[in-house]
């Protein structure tokens, strides 16, 4: 930990900057029309800058330990604390959220309708997500988790397109359903530990010392895991994702697919697997089977979608399936692949939704058969879409490739025949993914211009290019040289892998 940051509560600052800015913005006069976006940009830039400082100050040799901890007693009788910290995984997720939030604000730069309320909700959401990734007390974790999920209802219901009320309601109810499971699971952990605790490191020690019996783990692992996995779009709880993403405005889709789905996967890893490792071992084949359905079903389903956002949403179902499959392997390779895939998928979908927003803003349609030949008038958008698409189909040189490679290898080297079969079946998705990704490129961007009015369209402006280039650059850097990021992930996973490996199989 660097001396320059000694005593400065950097983690609180990171999540509170957007969160407090959002609250302050609520009280701004309604006549302000351009200021909200400036406030939002400033707040997200502060978080981004602090995250960069955090990346420099982080001690990479101790990636598995909690760093930059902040602890304040909150409700002493219930063991509720305000406890923040980062390990390597949290760090990576915070960095992802900082990048996506900043890009999302820029992607919403042209938003005019009720912009104040929009940016208020966006900032609350973004702040909440930062909080979840750094919270190490389950009470705080759950509270921030709900803060991150709830604004979604309004953001989609008010600023969305298409059947937005239905989509918003479906998304909220399904995620709340997941939360109900979570609450039950968290209570079980609290009452199952002696002395009762909500502190994640304490619970980890309790798990390691065998406080959670095998029957307890068998019962409560699926409850916690499913609660989180709904948000990671585990089949068959995935249908909120296509409708939700399609109806949501650009920045919300970016944040939602980019980071909120990762919140689900992060919870699965940190809470469900991290605190109930034996339960994880018992249920791993079932999780792997469902994840395989995600991977294959999503990639085949994407091929016949005609709305650009639905294609991307189904691709998310498929790619999040890779994350879940990696988690289910419960080994170093698969877990590091899963964490890297969380990061890579977040960046990639961020770019996808930003570009779809740009396209929709100009053509006023996302209907694939009505689009065509846009590369001629929007070469930047087309080129960026090609790169994002290549990331989607796992092309080497972009960050998704090492992630998927590790997940597949993880499934193979797990040791069990069942996982090997699942691995083979999952690899088949490289063919299906190529089909749907290239179909979109061919139909929307290549070929002759389908509508004369498209000839008038302008390519992306400078402000619109910034978030896209920013996110793509990270993808390329990590893709070309994944070594440092994997070092970080590997180090951070070491304690968990040890806990998982030290168990009787």
């Amino acid at each position, binding site marked *: 930990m660097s001396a320059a940051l000694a005593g400065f509560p950097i983690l609180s600052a990171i999540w509170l900057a957007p969160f407090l800015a959002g609250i302050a913005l609520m009280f701004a006069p309604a006549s302000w029309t351009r200021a909200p976006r400036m406030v939002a940009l400033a707040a997200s830039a502060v978080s981004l800058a602090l995250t960069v400082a955090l990346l420099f100050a982080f001690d990479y040799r101790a990636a598995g330990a909690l760093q930059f901890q902040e602890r304040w007693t909150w409700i002493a009788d219930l063991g509720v604390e305000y406890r923040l910290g980062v390990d390597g995984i949290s760090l990576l997720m915070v960095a992802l959220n900082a990048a996506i939030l900043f890009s999302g604000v820029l992607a919403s730069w042209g938003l005019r309708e009720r912009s104040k309320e929009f940016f208020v909700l966006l900032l609350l959401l973004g702040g909440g997500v930062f909080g979840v990734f750094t919270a190490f007390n389950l009470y705080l974790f759950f509270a921030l988790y709900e803060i991150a999920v709830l604004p979604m209802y309004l953001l989609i219901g008010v600023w969305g397109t298409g059947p937005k009320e239905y989509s918003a309601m479906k998304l909220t109810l399904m995620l709340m359903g997941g939360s109900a499971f979570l609450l039950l699971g968290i209570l079980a952990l609290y009452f199952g530990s002696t002395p009762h605790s909500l502190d994640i490191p304490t619970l980890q020690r309790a798990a390691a010392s065998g406080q959670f019996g095998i029957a307890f783990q068998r019962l409560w692992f699926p409850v916690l895991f499913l609660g989180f996995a709904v948000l990671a779009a585990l089949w068959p709880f995935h249908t909120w994702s296509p409708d939700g993403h399609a109806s949501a405005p650009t920045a919300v889709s970016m944040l939602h697919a980019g980071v909120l789905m990762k919140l689900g996967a992060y919870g699965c890893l940190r809470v469900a697997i991290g605190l109930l490792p034996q339960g994880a071992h018992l249920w791993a084949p079932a999780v792997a089977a469902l994840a395989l359905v995600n991977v294959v079903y999503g990639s085949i389903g994407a*091929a016949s979608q005609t709305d650009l956002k639905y294609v991307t949403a189904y691709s998310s179902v498929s790619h999040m399936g890779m994350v879940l499959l990696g988690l289910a392997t419960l080994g170093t*390779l698969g877990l590091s692949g899963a964490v890297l895939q969380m990061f890579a998928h977040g960046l990639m979908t961020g770019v996808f939704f930003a570009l779809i927003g740009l396209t929709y803003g100009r053509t006023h349609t996302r209907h694939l058969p009505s689009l065509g030949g846009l590369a001629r008038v929007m070469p930047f958008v087309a080129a960026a879409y090609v790169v994002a698409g290549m990331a989607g189909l796992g*092309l080497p040189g972009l960050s998704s490739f*090492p992630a998927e490679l590790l997940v597949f290898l993880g499934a*193979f080297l797990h040791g069990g025949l069942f996982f090997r079969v699942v691995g083979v079946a999952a690899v088949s998705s*490289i063919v299906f993914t190529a089909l749907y990704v290239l179909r979109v490129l*061919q139909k929307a961007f290549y*070929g002759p211009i389908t509508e004369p009015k498209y000839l008038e369209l302008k390519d992306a402006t400078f402000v619109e290019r910034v978030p896209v280039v920013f996110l793509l650059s990270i993808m390329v850097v990590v893709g070309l040289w*994944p070594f440092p990021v994997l070092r970080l992930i*590997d180090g951070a996973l070491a304690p968990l892998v040890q806990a998982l490996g030290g168990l009787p199989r």
Partner: protein
Amino acid sequence: MPLSPAVFLIPLLPFAGFAANFLFLRRSRRGAPLVALAAVGLSLVLSLWIAAGVLASPAARTLQTPWLAVSGPLPGGFAISVGALVDPLSALLLVVVTLVSFLVHLYSLGYMREDPGLPRFFLYLGLFTFSMLGLVLSPNFFQMYIFWELVGLCSYLLIGFYVDKPEANQAAKKAFVVNRVGDFGFFLGIVALTAYLGTADFAHVPAMVGRWPLYGPAWLPLGAVALLLFGGAVGKSAQFPLHVWLPDAMEGPTPVSALIHAATMVAAGVFLVARAYSVFDAALMGSVDAPLVVAWIGGFTSIFAATIACTQHDIKRVLAYSTLSQLGYMVLALGAGGLGVTAGVFHLFTHAFFKALLFLGAGSVIHAVHSNDLRAMGGLRRRMPVTGITFLVACLAISAIPPFAGFFSKDMILDALRQAHLTALYTVAAGVSFLTAFYIFRLYFLAFEGEPAPADGHGGHGAAHAHESPGTMTAPLLVLGLLSCVAGFAGLSWGGKSFGSYIRFDRPASLAADWTRATALASAHPDARGHLALADALWAGPESAEPAAAPPAPEPSRAFTLDLSVSIPATLLGLAGLFLAYAVYRRRWLPAERLAAAFGPVHTLVQRKYYVYEAYRWALDHLYYVLSAGIAWFDRHVVDGFMNALAWASQAGGAGARRLQTGRVQAYALAMLAGLLLLLASLKVLL
């Protein structure tokens, strides 16, 4: 002599050119081509320097650094490295790739001069050269896969270079997807080797494959792993049944067809099999005869594609089917083993020159006539003498007429087939010799001899007004023409050294002993099969006896030797094909229409490429997309239907529950008591 890190400059120079063009010269019509040309020119010089070093000391040398590493699942952790492996095979390919790439860059200065997308073209060309060189230098399977995918991307981008053209986009997509089918197998093969042998390094795999009976699981014979790897080659080198993408790839600019789809990238499959030959060879010990499958796939592709080439009217398509056929030839040779491995790579080497020449010559013709249709050409040799003469040289080379380059490599392949006692395939290969000479001279006579076609017939400006291409285009033709004359002499023995002294596969002396010992250990400890850690422990265990030192096998010479019983019939078959083409297309003693009519439905079947793609298309539309639409329906109606029903039920339930709100306090108290009891009971059960 350790390997100099300067070897990394060979791929990195084109990459630097690509990066500079991407960042600064995206609109530069003069700068971008020159930067790209200079970069690949320097790579060529460095490659020649590396190759000279290898000629002096051919031992393999490796430089690598971890690209990705995690601390599991084995005690030593798991890492994937990137780097360079320099041995005769990679040095050969380095020279071929940089040389052809340099010539194609030069040629494109003229060919693409008028094209509005010229900077983008050179951008992609630079990226391709980098990727192909990275592939060639791979020290392990993973790096090969990485660059394998990247050359696929470049191929995709360049096939679809004319973005406004729907056919080009369709062809680009098809190329990528079909290749992915092969890559599915390739990837699984790599993973299987990694999972069971614990290594994917080319330096370590040959010593490990002999242990497969112990290290591999009982249900996965080594031959199956070899065939999975071969899947990648079937895709990339467009072997039947994944050949359908290559003819359509001709939608790309012609220099690209020469570089990527004739000389270099499509040969990557052959390179892969040669590189991984120890896996194929060791499979002979087991139950699946992988090399025989390889040989048959190659042999079938070579004759299958050659028949189609006889019936096409598009000059580039004829050449594309010819490429398929020639690649099939190389694959067939590899499947024969022994001398065949040398012969296959030797044919890769000579073919790179004469096929690139054929494509660049065709490009020169298309540049002049503005049409791809052979029926719009004719009499071009007089109007375009350099193109005409060099093209004729290439035709003689591919027809294996001595002493042109193709003669030596093709003869060596026939020799290898005979040595391997593959009589049926020997007959197939001889038949292909005849067909090759026929279709290539059909093309030659239609385009270059006879009378020019009138301007209106099949589009284009009319062959009568064609002009020779500029010097940037003819210079590469001359260089390749020279190489098509002399490259074959590399097979001859020069002071005891020949092509075959460097490029050869020799079975590791310990293979048979290793295989026997592994089989014995596996039957004694069946539990250890397929478990790397256990297998490792057993292999190094105390009972490990000194493996019986096998007497080194007498090393057969791999130099080209003239065997008249092979050469004379093969040459006569080539001349017969040439003569038939002369009779039909030049003299018209037997008009082509009559010939086609005589074959009737067979001719239609062949001209329509045996309807293979139509069958795939049908399956894709009627099976795959129906399945995909089924998923959309399932989500919309079953999954969502369930969720909606749940929502409806809870609403209805809420409406029903409202009636419970009677306002009678006694009823509430009763309900509270019941609830409390229920809660306590459930806590008792759960905790």
